[in-house]
C-alpha cells in the first residue's frame, strides 16, 4: 500500500533526509577520509590510564551536574508552571540568557567571581566550578521544558486528589510528579548530553587536570594532529551517547501516559504563596544574575568612571575586528533565525512521526512507522552528543560536493540547527504524546482527515512547546562558537561570539571593556527576542 500524503512516513522523510545529509554523511566521510585508525590506535587509547580517568570524569561530572540542575530548577519550574504573575516572562527570558553567553565570557565571569570571593585557590580548576557553570547554563532547560509542560496540564486530577483528602505534598508526589515524568525525562536527557559533551566550560575552567572525552578529542585532533586517537575517542563517545539515547527513548515511551491538556487558568499567587515563590526564585536568580551583572558593570566602566564609551566604540569598527559591533550582531541574529527556522521545521516534522509511532497498539502504527520514529528519536538527538570538533571536521570534509557549502553562511546555520533540533523534539514530543486519544478520535469521527487533525488540533495544542523549542534553537545558535569558528570570519560572517573572542585575544583594558559591552548587547538582544517569541504564547493553550 502506498503511503498517503500526510502519513507519518511521508512527513518523516524531511527530518530523515536532514539527518542523513548533515549528520550521518559528514561523519561517515570524516571517518573514511580523515579520521582513520587501526588496532594500534585502539590499543593506544585503552591502555592509557588517562583515558579511563577521563571517561570516568566525563560520566561523573555529567550525572552530578544534571542532578544538581534538576534539584535547584524544579521549584522554579513549579512557580513558572503553576502561577501567573507580573515579571514571569522576564524571569523566563532571564534564565535563558546564560545559554547564549559565549563560554569564554562565562568562564571569565566565574573565574573573576571566585577571585573576588577569595575562593580561587580552593575551587579554581575544581570539579565544583565545572558543575556550577553547567548548572548556570542548564537551569533554563528544566525551567522551560518542565515549567512549560506543567502549565499545559489540566489540574483536575490534583483537585480530585485534594478533595479525596490528600495533602498538598501527597498530591504532588502521587499525582503531579508522575504526570511530569515525561518532561523531566526530556530535560534530563538534554542536560546529560549537553554536559557529557560540554567543551568550553571543561577546557577553560577545568584546566589540564580535568578532562572529558570531548576535550581529549580536541587535544588529539587539533594540537597533536593525531587523528587516529581522536577518531577512537570520538567513536567511544558516540557509542556511549547512543546507549544513553536508546535507554532514554525506551523510558520515554514507557513513562508517557495520555493526559488531559487544556486551558486551566493559573492563579495569581496570594499571601503566603509569595513566600514560597520567593524561596524558589531568589536563590537561583542570585546565582544566575551575579556573574551576568558583573559583566554588565564591567561593560560600562571606562576611563576610571562609568559611561557609554565602550558601546560607542562598537558603532565604529573597533581595532582588530573586520566589522563594527552592529554588523556582527546582525550577522549573529540572521544566522540564528535561519538556524531556528530549520530546526523548527525539521523538529516539528520529526516530533509528529515520533509521537504517532509510539501510539497505543490499537491505533496501529505500522512497523515501518515505528522504526522511523525510533530512528528519528535517537538519531536527531545524537548531534547534541557528538563532539563539535568531529562535526566541524565532518562538515569540512563532506559538504564540498555537489555544491561547495563550506564558504557560505548556510553551513553555519546548518551546523547550528543540528544542535537546535533536539531541543524542539524534546519540547514537542512529550506534549504530542500526551494528547488524549479521545480528542483525536472525536475529530476523526466528525470527518477530519489525519492531516486536518494534525493541523487543527495537535499542532495548536503543541504551540507553546514549539515556542519553547524555538527559543532554545535560537539561543543555542546565537551563542554558538565552535562550528562558526571553523567556517568563517569574513566581514559578512563575523558573529558576536567570534568578535568577543577576538577582542579578548589581545592585552589591554579597552578591548576587555568592549568585549563586555558586546556580551551585554548579546544578552539584551536575547532577552528581547525571547520575550517576543514568548508573547505568541499568550493566546495559545496556556
Amino acid at each position, binding site marked *: 500500500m502506498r503511503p498517503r500524503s500526510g502519513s507519518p512516513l511521508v512527513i518523516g522523510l524531511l527530518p530523515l533526509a536532514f539527518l542523513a545529509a548533515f549528520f550521518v554523511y559528514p561523519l561517515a566521510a*570524516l*571517518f*573514511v577520509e*580523515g*579520521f582513520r*585508525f*587501526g588496532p594500534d590506535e585502539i590499543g593506544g587509547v585503552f591502555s592509557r590510564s*588517562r583515558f579511563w580517568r577521563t571517561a570516568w570524569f566525563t560520566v561523573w561530572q555529567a550525572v552530578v551536574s544534571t542532578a544538581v540542575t534538576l534539584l535547584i530548577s524544579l521549584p522554579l519550574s513549579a512557580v513558572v508552571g503553576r502561577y501567573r504573575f507580573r515579571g514571569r516572562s522576564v524571569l523566563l527570558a532571564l534564565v535563558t540568557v546564560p545559554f547564549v553567553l559565549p563560554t569564554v565570557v562565562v568562564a*571569565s565571569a566565574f*573565574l*573573576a567571581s571566585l*577571585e573576588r570571593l577569595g575562593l*580561587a585557590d580552593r575551587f579554581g*580548576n575544581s570539579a565544583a566550578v565545572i558543575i556550577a557553570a553547567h548548572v548556570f547554563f542548564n537551569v533554563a532547560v528544566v525551567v522551560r521544558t518542565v515549567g512549560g509542560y506543567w502549565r499545559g496540564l489540566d489540574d483536575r486530577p490534583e483537585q480530585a486528589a485534594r478533595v479525596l483528602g490528600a495533602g498538598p505534598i501527597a498530591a504532588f508526589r502521587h499525582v503531579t510528579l508522575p504526570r511530569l515524568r515525561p518532561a523531566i525525562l526530556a530535560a534530563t536527557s538534554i542536560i546529560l548530553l549537553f554536559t557529557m559533551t560540554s567543551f568550553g566550560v571543561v*577546557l*577553560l575552567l*577545568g*584546566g*589540564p*587536570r580535568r578532562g572529558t572525552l570531548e576535550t581529549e578529542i*580536541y587535544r588529539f*585532533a*587539533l*594540537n597533536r*594532529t*593525531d*587523528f587516529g586517537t581522536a577518531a577512537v575517542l570520538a*567513536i567511544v563517545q558516540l557509542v556511549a551517547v547512543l546507549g544513553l539515547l*536508546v535507554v532514554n527513548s*525506551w523510558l520515554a515511551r*514507557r513513562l508517557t501516559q495520555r493526559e488531559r491538556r487544556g486551558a486551566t487558568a493559573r492563579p495569581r499567587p496570594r499571601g503566603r504563596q509569595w513566600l514560597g515563590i520567593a524561596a524558589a526564585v531568589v536563590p537561583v536568580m542570585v546565582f544566575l544574575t551575579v556573574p551576568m551583572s558583573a559583566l554588565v558593570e564591567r561593560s560600562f566602566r*571606562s*576611563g*576610571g568612571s562609568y559611561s557609554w564609551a565602550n558601546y560607542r566604540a562598537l558603532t565604529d569598527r573597533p*581595532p582588530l*575586528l*573586520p566589522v563594527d559591533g552592529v554588523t556582527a550582531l546582525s550577522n549573529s541574529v540572521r544566522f540564528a533565525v535561519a538556524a531556528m527556522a530549520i530546526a523548527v521545521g525539521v523538529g516539528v516534522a520529526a516530533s509528529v512521526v515520533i509521537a504517532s509511532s509510539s501510539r497505543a497498539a490499537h491505533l496501529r502504527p505500522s512497523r515501518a512507522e515505528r522504526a522511523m520514529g525510533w530512528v528519528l528519536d535517537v538519531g536527531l538527538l545524537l548531534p547534541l552528543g557528538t563532539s563539535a570538533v568531529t562535526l566541524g*571536521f565532518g562538515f*569540512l*570534509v563532506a559538504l*564540498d560536493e555537489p555544491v*561547495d557549502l563550506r*564558504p557560505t553562511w548556510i553551513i553555519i546555520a546548518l551546523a547550528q540547527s543540528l544542535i537546535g533540533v533536539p531541543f524542539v523534539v524534546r519540547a514537542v514530543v512529550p506534549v504530542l504524546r500526551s494528547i488524549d486519544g479521545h480528542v483525536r478520535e472525536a475529530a476523526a469521527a466528525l470527518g477530519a482527515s489525519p492531516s486536518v487533525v494534525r493541523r487543527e488540533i495537535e499542532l495548536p495544542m503543541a504551540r507553546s512547546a514549539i515556542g519553547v523549542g524555538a527559543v532554545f534553537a535560537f539561543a543555542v545558535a546565537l551563542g554558538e562558537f565552535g562550528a*562558526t*569558528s*571553523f567556517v*568563517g*570570519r*569574513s566581514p559578512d560572517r563575523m558573529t558576536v561570539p567570534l568578535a568577543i*573572542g*577576538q577582542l*579578548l*585575544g*589581545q*592585552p*589591554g*583594558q*579597552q578591548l*576587555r*571593556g568592549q568585549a563586555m559591552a558586546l556580551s551585554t548587547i548579546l544578552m539584551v538582544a536575547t532577552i528581547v527576542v525571547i520575550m517576543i517569541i514568548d508573547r505568541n504564547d499568550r493566546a495559545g493553550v496556556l
Partner: protein
Amino acid sequence: MVLRFGFLRFRFLRFVRLERRLLAPIVALVLVAAACGSQDEAQDEVSRDACTDPVQAATAIDRDVDVAGTTIRLATHGSFALSDDTLAAFTEQTGIEVEQVGAGDAGTLVSSAILTKDNPTADVLFGIDNAFLCRGLDADLFLAYESPELARVPDEFELDGGSRVTPISYGDVCANYWFNELPADPPTSLDDLVAEVNRGQFVTQDAEVSSPGFAFLLATIAKYGEDGWEDYWRKLLANDAAIAADWESAYRGDFIAGGGDRSIVMSYASSPAAEVLFADPPVDEPPTGVLFDGCFRQIEFAGILAGTDHPAAAAALIDFMLSTTYQNDIPLNMFVYPVVEDAMLPGVFVEHAALASDPLTLDPTTIEQNREDWLDQWAEIVLA
C-alpha cells in the same frame, strides 16, 4: 514498587533483544571503517631526514595568466586582523578579491587544512608557525613558490629548504610581569620562576591546547635540554605555578590584568605595546614588563595550498604579504613583527615592544619527531 521494577526490567530485556538487530549494523559499520583506515596507514609514512628538505624539483607556477577578476580565499586563524584598506590595496593593484575563511586557533587551521587537502577551503593559508610547520610539510599541503620579495627577508626566517612556505611575521613568546604587584625584583631568568619568592605568582598555558603554552614547553626543552626540562617543570609546579587552558584565561583570568592575583604570565614580548595602545584610561608607560630570558621565537608562514585552482593569484597574494603595505600593517593588528628588513615599526612598538636578543628555537623536524613524547611526558608531570 518492587513489582513495577521487575516489570521495567522485563520490558527492558525484551527491548534490548529487539534493538540488537539495529545495533548490529552500526557495530559492523564501525569495524569496516576501522579496517579501511588501517590499510592506508602505510602510505602516509614519509622517509626524509628533515621535513624541511625539498621533496622534489618544484614545478614553477605559471605567472603569465590574467588574474584580474578572480576571487581567492585566505585561510587564517582567529588572531588574524588587518586594517580596512590593506587588502583593498591588493585588490586595486591586481584585481584579485580576497575572502577570509577560518577563525579557530593555529592547531585548528593546520588540522582543517590537512583534512581538506584534496579539496581545500582556501587557496592560501597563513598562520602555520615553526611548531606546526612539519605537520603541514609532511602532509604535502603546499605548492613550492619562491617569491622574488624574499630577497628582502633575512635568511634566518626561511626555514623550509623547499620554499613551500614563506615567512611573513615573527614574535617572541616571553613571560610578562605586572610591575606594581611583583613580590620581589622583576624576574630576570626562567630560574627565578621556580624561586620561593615567586611562589604562586606564575601562570602559563596548557601546552596541549595553547600556542604560547606549547612554545613555553619548547623553550624549557631548548634551555634545559632533554634531561633537564622535566625537572624544571616539576619545580615550577611545586612552586604553585598555575596552568590555564589558553592565553585568554591566563592573561584575562589569572593574571593581575584580568582581575586575577598572579603577577607573572606567559605572553608575548610585544604585549606591553598593546597594554599602552589599548589602555583605558590612557597611559604613557605600560604596567607590564617582559622577562627576556627563555623566550621562544615563533615564525609564522604563508603557503599556497596544493589543491588551489588559482596558483598565480595565490602567488600574487604571497608577494603582497611581503610588500611594505602589508608588512607595515602587521604590528598594530597582530602584535608581531614584520619579517622584511625595510618595514617601518609604529612608534608604540619602537617604544614599548621589544625582541629577545637571544631567543630560543628548536628545529621544526626535532619538534615534529618528539612532539607526542614531549606532550605525553608533560601531561604526566602536570597530572601527577
